[in-house]
């Protein structure tokens, strides 16, 4: 992990908390997902409501729009589009579907969940970040600031970090093997290999097993050595 791009927060335990800060790419990715979702929702609402309002296969606004047209056809899609971010973020304390899919989360500078005031402030400042078009100012700001934050984040004291919820633990060696020659690093590599085994083609399996066989620690463990040789020969677990 690149420690230079981490937000390091002091903790009462004396061990600092390291949060990997999301860069402009990850932020843009999350934003695009959210933009697609809110656009689809808004358009879908408009089309369905317009069809129901017009009572036929037309989604065009009437020549003299009445109150129900504005209240049921125009206002809800506008609300979905413009209130999507603040509502989601306040309801989930810093998450939107796009951020969740991109593995990001909004946090405050102390590493905790931001307060409602901070979340509303960062969303109000979208008015500035979206200038002059397509969030250009916000994007440029994320490129030039140390923690890759936009102006709204500067105002609210927030930033986006990777959640890393998908990080899994490797299966580690059991007691018997642990007391023998297999070291922790090799054990981790092997565990990872076994996890990914199903996704590898047979040539890759052979190549990796051969590589591990050359490792000194694995080479001295007879039981493991035999298993790996068998894998390398057969190419199947």
């Amino acid at each position: 992990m690149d420690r230079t791009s981490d937000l390091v927060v002091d903790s009462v335990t004396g061990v600092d908390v390291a949060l990997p800060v999301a860069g402009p790419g990850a932020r843009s990715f999350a934003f695009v997902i959210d933009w697609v979702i809110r656009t689809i929702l808004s358009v879908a609402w408009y089309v369905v409501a317009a069809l129901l309002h017009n009572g036929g296969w037309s989604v065009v606004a009437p020549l003299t729009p009445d109150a129900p047209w504005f209240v049921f056809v125009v206002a809800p899609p506008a609300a979905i589009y413009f209130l999507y971010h603040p509502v989601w973020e306040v309801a989930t304390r810093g998450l939107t579907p796009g951020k969740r899919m991109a593995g990001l989360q909004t946090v405050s500078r102390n590493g905790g969940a931001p307060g409602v005031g901070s979340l509303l402030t960062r969303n109000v400042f979208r008015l500035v970040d979206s200038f002059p078009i397509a969030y250009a100012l916000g994007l440029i700001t994320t490129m030039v600031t140390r923690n890759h934050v936009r102006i709204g984040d500067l105002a609210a004291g927030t930033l986006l970090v990777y959640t890393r919820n998908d990080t899994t633990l490797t299966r580690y060696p059991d007691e018997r093997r642990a007391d023998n020659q297999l070291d922790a690093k090799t054990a981790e590599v092997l565990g990872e290999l076994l996890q990914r085994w199903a996704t590898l083609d047979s040539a890759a399996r052979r190549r990796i097993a051969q590589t591990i066989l050359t490792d000194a620690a694995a080479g001295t463990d007879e039981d493991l050595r035999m298993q790996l040789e068998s894998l390398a020969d057969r190419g199947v677990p």
Partner: protein
Amino acid sequence: MSESTRENALRLTLLRRSELWKDATARIRRLSGKRTQDATDAAAMADDYRMLAHDVAKARRMLPDSRAREYLEAAYAQAHASLHRPAWHAGHAVLNLFRDDIPAVMRWLRPHVFWATALFILTVVAGYWMVHTYPDLIALFASPELIATVERGQLWTEGLLNVVPSSVLSLQILTNNIVVSLFAYCAGFLFGLGTVYVLGLNGLMLGAVFAFTGQYGLDDDLFRFVVAHGCVEISVMCLSGAAGAAVGEALIRPGTATRAESFQRAALQSGKLILACVLLLVGSGLIEGYISPNPAVSLRVRIAIGVSYWLFMIALLNGWLFRFHRLKSVATRLKSAVTA
């Protein structure tokens, strides 16, 4: 025992704790984002936090590039975020906001409110003078349609309800006003210049339009239209400008803090006032949609509504509306003391 054997044994001892990490992670995920009344759960989470901190420190030293370390860092960060999640009770938060926070912000922003209002009044007078002296300058502030309507001896607000229903009109107006108010606040980011621009432009427009309608004898009608909603709407414009000015000043004169810290503090503090402004603009929009264009409402009623709503705004911003809560609790304490 050689050093490498010792290190390896230590690493393996650490890795054998992986089941504990998994349990801790599962508990953190279960509890994060949820309220729990169970003190055992909360205590277990605090223990998990300490345990993870201990193991993260070891993993950083012994297994710096391992998956185990990555897993521990993630679990530790999650535990930290969950434990540092501020308590949130919507009712208390709203009460505190209107009873304590907003009045405090108002006291802090008093000089900014004064200067923003002075700037607004000055630009209204300037706009009025400009168009009164050079009538052609109205083209800078008003659309050709508006100018043509006034030149025909009519106000553009006449018959507004025949064209657009009140509900729609209210929605359009309050949306527009809220955006302008938020923009006046955010534009403070440009060292206050953006806020000065928004306030100045709106003041010039108001003065210019009054001067222009005055030339056609329609200024009384315009006043009649504006008075019910305008008292609060114009005040909110000045308040938003004050909030923006505070943001700008924080960037120009950060004091002992860094510019970023000062900006953040000012934005978060004055943002509370903006929330109140948004709520007030919703009421203003409803008045502008339902009462202002309605010819059946007399001038007296309009003035009464405008002044009442303005007084309501003053009471809201100074926290007077929520003082009864405090008085009630004092009365309860007194009563219990007397009973005792």
